[in-house]
């Protein structure tokens, strides 16, 4: 990671980069939500479909099993028809030959069972028209057979061979019909078994497909979640990195600012020193010039006395007026320049001074400031009030003292002529910041000059008071130095309120920096 890239170009696109990141992340989140929802829905739908299908297949299977069972029942009854027919025959033979039948049953029993079997087949095959037709024919044949048997029994004698043959034929017809019905049932059974097997097969296929689908959805979800988590982690890491870089950039920027500030301080200091040096010459040689006026004046006077025609008016004026006037202007200008340079020096020195925070009761500080100015206050008849409750700060005593005394001094200095001066000093604390306000009823400051008055060498309003425009610049520099701000609220002729906003507790690390500098 190259810090230089961060220091210069990096910072400018931080917010944009972060916004992009956020948008991408949000979009990704939405997409992820949609995908997961889709997958989960798909999965649940698959499981539901599988369940439903399984239930249907199961129900159908049950149905089919029932049908198979039914077919078996029909088969059994058809077999019973065949069996009872045989019984009927043997019972008739037995009764005819007067011997007990094989089954020991009477013909009546056998025939009753025969008809019952036919009836039950009829009942069982209600749904099958083919079998119903067969049953109907069977009934007709059975009745005819039964009456034939009954006739043969009643007669007690052997009947004609013709009737015997007819009976035989009918019996075999019944037999054949039963066989046909059996065959039909076997056919049905085959179909139904096949259908059952088919549905089971389908069931398994569907189950397999659903299983596959569930597995796919599961794997898909896991994959998507994993990928998303990965992305989340990556972007989290990136965010962390950005955050670290930002801190680094801020630290670097702070150091840069500190360095720039130090540079300005040093610059101001060196410049003011080097400006002073030529000033010494200007003032020194001006004094030399001034000193040489005296012998010149003496000479002029002497010549004037002895040889008045030699002295021109110009020469006299030059010595008596022009020279002193020029020297006077040079003097006042250099003196002013000296004051300005001293002001820069003082500000620069103030910036280098070590701040020593201590506990300050602003009430006492304000009292001290007012006491120092008491002489002028009494002279001008100004009423100064200090609020009863003033905040307590931890800050630099000298700086606070200078801020307050500059503000009060200004309030005294710029009173409205003809209006008794009133100055109120108050203070309050809110959110860890103390606000010290100095309010006056003086001549006020035009709103357009509100920023200007804090600039070095700038003044506002009538220039009827001595001063270089240093006080408020100094106050603002001090306030900044203490981590505070200052503003003014004023209108022309309506007084002014200067509010200094300071941290209740001076941030110590800056002081330490300064100490290590000194």
């Amino acid at each position, binding site marked *: 990671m190259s810090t230089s890239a961060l220091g210069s170009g990096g910072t400018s696109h931080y917010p944009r980069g972060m916004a992009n990141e956020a948008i991408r992340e949000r979009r990704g989140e939405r997409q992820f939500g949609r995908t997961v929802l889709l997958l989960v829905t798909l999965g649940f739908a698959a499981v539901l479909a599988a369940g439903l299908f399984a239930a249907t297949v199961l129900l159908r299977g049950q149905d089919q099993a029932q049908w198979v069972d039914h077919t078996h029942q029909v088969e059994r009854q058809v077999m019973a028809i065949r069996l009872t027919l045989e019984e009927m025959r043997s019972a008739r033979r037995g009764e005819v030959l007067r011997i007990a039948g094989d089954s020991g049953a009477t013909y009546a029993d056998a025939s009753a069972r025969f008809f019952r079997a036919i009836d039950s087949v009829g009942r069982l095959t209600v749904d099958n028209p083919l079998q119903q037709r067969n049953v109907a024919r069977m009934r007709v044949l059975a009745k005819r057979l039964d009456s034939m048997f009954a006739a043969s029994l009643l007669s007690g004698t052997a009947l004609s061979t013709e009737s015997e043959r007819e009976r035989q034929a009918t019996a075999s017809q019944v037999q054949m019909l039963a066989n046909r019905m059996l065959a039909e049932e076997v056919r049905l059974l085959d179909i139904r078994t096949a259908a059952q097997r088919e549905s089971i097969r389908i069931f398994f296929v569907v189950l397999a497909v659903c299983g596959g689908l569930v597995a796919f959805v599961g794997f898909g979800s896991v994959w998507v979640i994993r990928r998303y988590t990965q992305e989340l982690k990556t972007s989290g890491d990136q965010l962390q990195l950005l955050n670290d870089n930002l801190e680094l950039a801020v630290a670097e920027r702070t150091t840069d600012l500190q360095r720039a500030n130090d540079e300005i301080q040093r610059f101001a200091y060196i410049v003011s020193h080097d400006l002073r040096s030529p*000033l010494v010459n200007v003032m*020194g*040689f001006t*004094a*030399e010039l001034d000193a040489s006026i005296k012998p010149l004046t003496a000479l002029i006077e002497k010549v004037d006395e002895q040889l008045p025609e030699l002295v021109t008016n110009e020469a006299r004026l030059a010595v008596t007026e022009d020279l002193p006037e020029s020297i006077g202007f040079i003097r006042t200008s250099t003196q002013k320049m000296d004051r300005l340079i001293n002001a820069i020096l003082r500000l620069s*020195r103030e910036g280098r001074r070590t701040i020593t925070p201590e506990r300050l009761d602003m009430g006492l500080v304000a009292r001290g400031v007012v006491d120092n100015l008491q002489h002028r206050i009494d002279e001008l008849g100004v009423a100064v009030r200090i609020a009863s409750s003033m905040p307590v700060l931890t800050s630099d005593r000298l700086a606070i003292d200078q801020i307050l005394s500059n503000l009060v001094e200004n309030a005294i200095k710029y009173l409205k002529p003809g209006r008794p001066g009133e100055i109120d000093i108050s203070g309050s604390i809110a959110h860890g910041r103390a606000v010290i306000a100095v309010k006056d009823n003086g001549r006020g400051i035009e709103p357009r000059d509100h920023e200007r008055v804090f600039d070095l060498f700038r003044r506002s309003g009538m220039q009827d008071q001595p001063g270089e425009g240093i006080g408020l610049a100094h106050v603002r520099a001090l306030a900044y130095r203490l981590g505070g701000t200052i503003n003014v609220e004023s209108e022309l002729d309506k007084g002014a309120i200067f509010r200094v906003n300071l941290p209740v507790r001076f941030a110590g690390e800056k002081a330490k920096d300064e100490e290590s500098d000194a």
Partner: protein
Amino acid sequence: MNATQAVNIVMIEDDEGHARLIEKNIRRAGISNPIHHFLDGTSALHFLYEDPEGPAKSGPALILLDLNLPDMSGTDILAKIKGEGPLKRAPVVVLTTTDDKVEIQRCYDLGCNVYITKPVNYESFADAIRQLGLFLSVIQVPDVAEH
């Protein structure tokens, strides 16, 4: 004490105007000792240590030193004079525009005898130099190392 030997005044001052003003005021204070003026540190050091007429080779000397010189820092010259060598007892008067506390302390730490800030106000400047002149008239300057 060698009273017959004149004390040389070595003035190291890059500003000719200042040098002239200083000289004038010293003369006004009634000091007539020879004043050797140097505009930069290199030639001054050469005179102090190498020149046959320089204080290291002959006669006692008093040094007026400005701190802001074009080629080297006045404090470096001060450190050299006050370090080991024939001139370590020679009185040094630092006469400069710098009134920074740290700088003043540093000069005294290095062994400067008097530190005077040049006042911009000419009256006080002239006054300071005159007083320096009075001071110079009573000061006892040690001989350089015997040879």
